[in-house]
C-alpha cells in the first residue's frame, strides 16, 4: 500500500508521549500533579484510559537504562527533578489489559539489551493487548549507562566527542553511525524473530502427535557486525504479525534508521517548511532502502502547554520555568496556547506530509486532559480526527496497525 497523502480534510493520527509527571522539569510541582503516584500502576492506567477517552492512536512511554539527567551525556545530582522510572514495557503490559483500543509503544534501548528478549517482550505485549503493541527503539550513548552493563562492542558517545565541535570529525561520525547501524540490525532481528513462526505453525495434530508443524518454524540465522542470533523465537508470531516499530530522529543518521527500519518516525520540525525538508530527506532514504512502496508514517513531535485561553497557557509555562529556575528548552518545538491555535498549527504542518503528531504534554495530567477534552473535539469539528474508534468490520480492527492504516506484514518465511 503506498503512503496516503494527507490533506487537512483527512484524519490526523495523534499519539501522546508519557514520561513521568510530564515533559517540563517542574511539572511535578503543579497543583494537580501526582508525583507520589509515579511508581504505581494506577497512575499509568489513569493516563492511558484518559488518552483512550480521547480516541488517540497510541501512547508512547519513555525509558532509559540510567537515572534521568538534565545533562545528555552524564549524570547530574539534581534533587529538584523527577528521578527514577519503571520499565516501560512492563508499564505498558500492566496497563494494556485495562484499556481496549489504544496502542502502546514503550521505549526499548537497543544498545545494551538482547534483541531476543525485547522481541518476545513486545510480542507478548501484542498478545496481552490483543494486537495493540509497538516499540520505539532508542540508542543509549552515555558512558555512565554503558558502565551499568560492562559489556559493549561500541564505544560510548561522550559529550566531548559530540558537543565540542567534533561532531563532524570522521571518527565521531563513524561512532554515531555505528550506534544507529546496530539499532538497524537490532530491528531486523526483532522482525525476523516475529516472523520466525508462521501464523499457522500450531497444528495440534492428534493423529501424528504433533503440536506444531516444525517446517513452519524458522531459524533466523542473523549474522551482523555486532551480534548473531539463531532463533526461532520462543514466542509464536504475535497478533499483528509484526508489532509497530518507531524511532525518533533529529538528523540524517537517525533519519536513515527510520527510513530503513521503522513504521513510524518521530521528528522535530520547528515549522511547516522544516517538516517538509525532513520528510523529503526521509522519503529519499526510504527509496534508497528499497522501501518506497511501504507505508512509513512521519509524526511531528511537539511539547504542548494547553489551556482554554492562550494567555493562561503562556502564564503556566512561565510559572513552570520560574519553578525550574531555567527556561525549558527541548529538541521539539514547544507550543503554548489554546486548542484552536494548536489545531491550526497541526493542520498547517500536516500539509507538509506529516501523517500525525506525537504530543508531549508539558504537565500531566493537565495537558493530556486538554488534548483529549479540547484539542480532539476541535479537530473533530474540523473533520480532521476520528469521532470513534473503527467498528468491528474495519480492516485490522482492534489492532494498532489497523488504527494507523498499516497492513499486516506478510511473513518473510512463509512459502506461498
Amino acid at each position: 500500500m503506498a503512503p496516503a497523502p494527507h490533506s487537512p480534510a483527512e484524519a490526523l493520527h495523534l499519539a501522546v508521549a508519557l514520561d513521568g509527571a510530564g515533559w517540563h522539569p517542574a511539572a511535578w510541582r503543579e497543583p494537580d500533579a501526582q508525583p507520589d503516584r509515579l511508581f504505581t500502576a494506577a497512575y499509568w492506567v489513569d493516563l492511558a484510559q484518559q488518552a483512550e477517552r480521547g480516541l488517540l492512536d497510541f501512547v508512547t512511554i519513555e525509558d532509559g537504562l540510567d537515572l534521568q539527567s538534565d545533562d545528555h551525556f552524564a549524570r547530574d545530582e539534581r534533587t529538584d527533578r523527577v528521578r527514577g522510572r519503571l520499565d516501560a514495557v512492563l508499564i505498558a503490559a500492566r496497563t494494556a489489559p485495562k484499556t481496549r483500543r489504544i496502542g502502546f509503544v514503550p521505549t526499548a534501548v537497543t544498545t545494551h539489551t538482547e534483541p531476543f528478549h525485547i522481541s518476545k517482550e513486545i510480542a507478548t505485549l501484542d498478545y496481552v493487548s490483543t494486537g495493540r503493541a509497538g516499540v520505539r527503539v532508542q540508542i543509549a550513548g552515555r558512558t555512565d549507562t554503558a558502565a551499568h552493563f560492562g559489556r559493549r562492542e561500541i564505544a560510548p558517545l561522550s559529550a566531548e566527542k559530540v558537543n565540542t565541535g567534533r561532531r563532524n570529525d570522521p571518527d565521531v561520525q563513524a561512532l554515531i553511525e555505528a550506534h544507529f547501524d546496530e539499532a538497524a540490525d537490532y530491528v531486523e532481528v526483532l522482525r525476523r524473530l516475529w516472523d520466525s513462526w508462521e501464523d499457522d505453525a500450531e497444528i495440534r495434530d492428534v493423529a501424528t502427535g504433533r503440536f506444531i508443524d516444525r517446517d513452519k518454524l524458522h531459524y533466523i540465522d542473523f549474522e551482523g557486525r555486532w551480534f548473531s542470533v539463531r532463533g526461532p523465537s520462543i514466542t509464536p508470531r504475535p497478533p499483528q504479525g509484526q508489532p509497530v516499530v518507531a524511532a525518533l530522529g533529529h538528523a540524517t543518521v537517525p533519519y536513515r534508521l527510520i527510513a530503513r527500519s521503522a513504521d513510524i518516525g518521530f521528528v522535530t520540525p520547528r515549522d511547516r517548511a522544516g517538516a517538509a525538508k525532513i520528510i523529503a530527506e526521509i522519503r529519499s532514504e526510504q527509496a534508497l532502502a528499497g522501501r518506497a512502496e511501504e507505508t512509513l508514517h512521519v509524526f511531528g513531535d511537539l511539547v504542548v502547554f494547553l489551556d482554554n485561553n492562550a494567555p493562561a497557557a503562556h502564564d503556566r509555562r512561565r510559572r513552570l520555568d520560574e519553578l525550574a529556575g531555567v527556561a525549558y528548552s527541548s529538541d521539539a518545538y514547544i507550543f503554548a496556547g489554546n486548542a484552536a491555535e494548536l489545531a491550526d498549527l497541526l493542520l498547517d504542518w500536516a500539509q507538509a506530509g506529516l501523517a500525525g503528531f506525537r504530543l508531549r504534554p508539558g504537565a500531566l495530567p493537565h495537558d493530556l486532559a486538554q488534548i483529549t477534552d479540547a484539542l480532539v473535539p476541535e479537530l473533530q469539528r474540523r473533520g480532521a480526527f476520528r469521532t470513534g474508534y473503527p467498528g468491528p468490520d474495519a480492516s485490522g480492527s482492534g489492532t494498532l496497525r489497523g488504527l494507523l492504516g498499516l497492513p499486516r506484514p506478510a511473513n518473510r518465511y512463509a512459502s506461498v
Partner: protein
Amino acid sequence: MTKQIHLAAHFPGVNNTTVWSDPAAGSHIEFDSFTRFAQTAERGKFDFMFLAEGLRLREQNGVIYDLDVVGRPDTFTILAALAAVTDYLGLTGTINSTFNEPYEVARQFASLDHLSGGRAAWNVVTSWDGFTGENFRRGGYLAQDDRYERARTFLGTAAQLWDSWGGDEIIADKQSGEFLATPAPGAFKHSDAFFDIQGQFNVPRSPQGRPVIFQAGDSDEGRNFAASTADAIFSRHSTLKDGQAFYADVKGRLPKYGRTRDQLLILPAATFVLGDTDAEAADLAHEVRRAQVSPQTALRFIEQLWNTPLPDFDVDGPLPDFDPVVSDTLISKGRASVRMFAKNPVALADEWRARAADGKLSAREVVIEVTGRQSFVGAPETVASSINELVQADAADGYILVPHITPDGLAPFVDKVVPLLQERGVFRADYTGTTLRDHLGLDPLGQSGETGQANRAAS
C-alpha cells in the same frame, strides 16, 4: 502446632505433562488462558502462580521437538499483564542469570514489584549451554562448574542494586521543590569475576524491597545456595520419604547462614488427578498417563535414554536389547531432564528392561510407568488428606500444583480440594495481606540495605 499449607499454581509447561490433545485444552499463548488460570488460582486463595522459562526451542535428532506444547510468552511481560487482572496472587517468574545482565533483571523485577503492589518473585536459574547461547549477543556458555558461582554473584549484584535505594529518597515536596532527599540515589559499584559495573540504579525501592527469591537447585551446592539466599525452594521431592529427607536436609542448613526454619519454604512441584471416588481417579490417572506418553512421545523418550535415533522402532514391542550410546554429545538439546538420563544411561536402561520383564510391559508401557507419575490421585477428600499429612509430617510446606490441562485444569482442585483444606483450618479462607511475602508468612524486609542478600550471597 498445625502448619498452614501454602499452595501455588504452575502454568502448564512445554513438556509432556501438559495434555494439549485433550478436547478441553485451550490456548497456551492467548492472554485469556493466562487470565483464566491466574484468576482461578486467586479464587482458590493460592499464594502465587509460577512460570517456567526456556530460551531456546528444544531439539531432538537435530530438528525442533514438535510433540509437546511449543511456544510461550515473555515471563516479565505476561506477569505484569496478569497483575492487571488479579489483586492478591503472587507472580513468580523463572529468569535465567546466564543470558541476562543484573541491571536489567533487577529493574524489571523492581518494576514488576511496583506494578503489582508487592507481588513479584524470581525463580533464579542458570544454564550453561552454548545451544541456548546462540540466541544471545552475549553468546554461551559457562563452564558447568561456574554456573552456581555466576548465579550467586548475579543474585548478589541484583540485591546490591535493589538495596541501592533505601525507600526514603523520594519526598516529592511540591512546596520546597525537593523531589529527592539525596543527590545520588541508587549509587552502586560492583566488581567480581563475572560483573564489573557501577553507576546509579534507576528504580526506587519497591513495595517488597526486592522480589521473593526462589531456587530450584538440588545438588549439595544448589542446596547451600538456597539455604543461604532463597526465600523458597521449588523442589522435585513430592513423596513422603524423599520430601522429608530433602526438607530436613535443607532446613538443617539454615542455622549455618544465621537463618531460622521459617525463613525458607520448601514447595515441591506436584501433579494431581481428581475423581469422584479414588477408583475413578485412578482410572482417570491411567488415561492421563497414556495421553501424556503417546506412542510418538514414548519413542522420543527411549531415543533420549538410548541417545540415538530409532526411526523404525516399535514402541508396542520390547525395549531395545542393545545398550545406550554413551557420549558427551546428546541427541536431545535444551531439555534439563535428559541430563538425568545421561548420568548413567546403561544402568538406567537395565532398570527399565527389568521393569519391563517384571510387568510384561511394552516399551511404551515402561515409559508410562517410569516417567512422571502423578503426585496426588484420588477423591477430593483423599487428596486433601494426603497434602495435609505430607505438610504436617514436614515433607513440604506446601505444593506448587501443575495441572495437565490449560487453562482450566486447576479449577476442580480449587472448587473441591481447597474448601476441604479450609474446613480443616490448614489453609486460608481469605487473603490476610497484600504482598507475596505476606502470603508466604515471611517478615517484611526493612528499609535501606536490609535484604541481606548481598552479604550472604557474597560469603
